[in-house]
């Protein structure tokens, strides 16, 4: 199995080595994600998603300094601006929890014609299914909130592939999601080369 080396972009020192996952590992991740998505009995109700995201935000607030250093060290954004990014990411998690309140539908009028008489109709919003998130290096924590935390908040299983220059912020955040109680198959991290990432994005199952 080949390895992803992560460097400090300022000093060019190696700061981490992470095993790369190949197509077989991706297939297993996809299998788990689709299984969750297709089985509505496993869906997490909105109140459970809200509670888990609130716990995540609280956990992040306890680790601002650590998250700041991880992001600044691998991404190269200066400490002060990286700290702003971490605080934004926490705010984003709280916003996602709050926005679950706004996932709602509307009444569709019936009885306007004889053919539609005796009916009541309304819409509600369902998760779209499995989300593939492919992210960038420039906001290594906050973009994961924008792409993966939103997917979880919307009720979608998500597989997130961080930029290969900045995987540690993503791995740390997803680890925290699991620590606060989000079942692992809802949010999975793919560390891969570009070919495997393309397989994720273009999966036809």
């Amino acid at each position: 199995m080949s390895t992803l080396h992560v460097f400090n972009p300022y000093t060019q020192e190696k700061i981490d080595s992470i095993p790369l996952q190949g197509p077989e590992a991706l297939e297993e991740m996809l299998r788990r994600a689709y299984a969750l998505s297709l089985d509505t009995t496993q869906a997490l109700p909105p109140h459970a998603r809200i509670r888990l995201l609130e716990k995540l935000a609280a956990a992040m607030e306890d680790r601002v300094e650590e998250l700041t250093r991880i992001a600044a060290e691998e991404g190269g954004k200066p400490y002060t601006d990286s700290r702003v990014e971490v605080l934004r990411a926490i705010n984003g998690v709280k916003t996602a929890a709050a926005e679950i309140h706004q996932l709602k539908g509307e009444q569709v009028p019936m009885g306007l014609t004889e053919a539609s008489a005796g009916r009541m109709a309304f819409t509600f919003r369902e998760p779209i299914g499995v989300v593939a998130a492919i992210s960038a290096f420039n906001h290594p924590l906050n973009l994961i909130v924008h792409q993966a935390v939103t997917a979880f908040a919307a009720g979608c299983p998500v597989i997130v592939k961080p930029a290969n220059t900045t995987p540690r912020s993503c791995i740390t955040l997803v680890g925290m999601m699991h620590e606060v109680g989000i079942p692992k198959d809802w949010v999975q991290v793919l560390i891969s080369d570009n070919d495997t990432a393309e397989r994720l994005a273009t999966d036809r199952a």
Partner: protein
Amino acid sequence: MNFLTFIGSAKVGWYLKSKVAPGTRVALEHGGAAPVLVEEDAAIESIIGPLAKGGFYHAGQVCVSVQRVFVHASQAEAFAEKLAAAGEALVVGDPLEKATEVGPLILPDEVERVAQWVEEAISEGARCLSGGKKIGNTCYAPTVLYNPSPESKVSTEEIFGPVICVYPYTDRAEAIRQANALPYHFQASVFTQHVDKAFSAVRQLNALAVMVNDHTAFRVDWMPFGGRDASGEGIGGIAYSMHEMTRPKLMVIKSPAFE
């Protein structure tokens, strides 16, 4: 795959979109070459700080970084010199040091690319007022280029480095035409004291968001955010992404009770 959210280069994003399975909904967030229109009446002193921040923040590696600033010719040179001085004053170095304001580019190859683009712009007529050089192998000095050719890469492609281009104009309509001329349209700015000029620029600049009297890199995470045209597809922002990641189900109930 039911949904693909991609943040990265336009080249990769449009390629992936061309390959996704039928039915995959796609959200793409690429880069831009954000334009700023500085009107004739703008108070130059007060806009240097915001534009230096918007262009040099994260060494310009932001999809809405200030890149192309169109300044009325009556103030353009004075503005560019002050902006260059602001760039020179920034602390470049180790991102883990709390005093650092501009860190490295993500890869040494990117430093080389930015250096080549700046050299090309200078050889094609731009005047380099600050920076224009590497600092070690991993950083590039905050750079202000005055009046680069509209054909130079710094005028036509996303730089994604700490380089701001200043273009003097005398014809406002032509400046707006230049601002809109690239295939990338993401965020834009106008600086003026006149509300009617501000409204006019907001109407005419092609962007999802136009900032009035602030730099183009302004973002809070609950606002709609996204690129138009080559810069992307779909609307980001926490609530907007969550909406995109859900879809409506309609239930029609037939019952005599509703007769």
